[in-house]
């Protein structure tokens, strides 16, 4: 864990192999960080679900099932939000082709993108780097009355 006390944020970084058995490690690392950031247990469970789905998509689509690659996570806790970046070095995502499916179409699969968009305020794919994709997921903190937290 890296804590930058010079600024108002704490950053936790984690790198895991691109094997589905390490999704558990991602979930276990996220839970205390997100809870400590001030999110409720229910919000935390949904944030973890959406990040887990993002990692699953990296394994399936960016690395096409290759378990010998890596996924890097950076979790930044700020006064008003939590910002999670997932970096891979695999096949690049095409944001124009990523869309949640119609939920009335009851069939197996295709829910991960919907979960990410339903849970996070921002879902952004960046393919401008030398290789791979950086996916940024931002969840703003809200007061019990539904208002966004002040920075």
């Amino acid at each position, binding site marked *: 864990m890296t804590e930058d006390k010079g600024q108002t944020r704490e950053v936790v970084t984690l790198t895991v192999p691109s094997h*589905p*058995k390490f999704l*558990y490690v991602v979930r276990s690392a996220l839970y205390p960080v997100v809870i400590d950031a001030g999110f409720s247990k229910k919000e935390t469970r949904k944030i973890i679900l959406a990040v*887990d*789905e993002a990692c699953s998509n990296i394994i*399936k689509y960016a690395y096409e099932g290759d378990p010998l690659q890596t996924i890097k996570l950076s979790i930044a806790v700020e006064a008003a939000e939590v910002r999670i970046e997932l970096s891979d070095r695999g096949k690049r995502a095409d944001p124009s082709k990523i869309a949640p499916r119609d*939920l009335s179409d*009851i069939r197996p*699969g295709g829910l991960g993108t919907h979960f990410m968009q339903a849970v996070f305020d921002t879902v952004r794919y960046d393919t401008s780097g030398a290789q791979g994709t950086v996916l940024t997921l931002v969840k703003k903190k809200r007061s019990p009355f539904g208002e966004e937290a002040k920075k």
Partner: protein
Amino acid sequence: MKVEIAVEKHASGFLLKLKGDVDMNSSSDVRGALGDTFRQGPKDAKALFIDLSQVRYMDSSGIATLVEAMQTCLKQGARLRLIDLSPAVRDVFELARLASIFEIFPSMDEAAKGL
């Protein structure tokens, strides 16, 4: 993280009890257990019951597995009845808006009624 699967014979069908995390790493185990149950169970089973009270985590691959089980049950003329959803399962059902698609009961006794 593995999922533990227990299969019990019941008067009106079979009961699968899941315990642990149902994710991309383990949902194939659940799918395999469901396949074995469908193949080996009596063809006149009225229902397949799945107890989800001990599921600590479920992702979209777990949802996909349940949707496949529902489709197989429909083909075989049986009902799929889900029992006692854990908070983690409720969350994923809420996000996927699936609560109205499945038959969900608070207990095995309630689920076994009306078959």
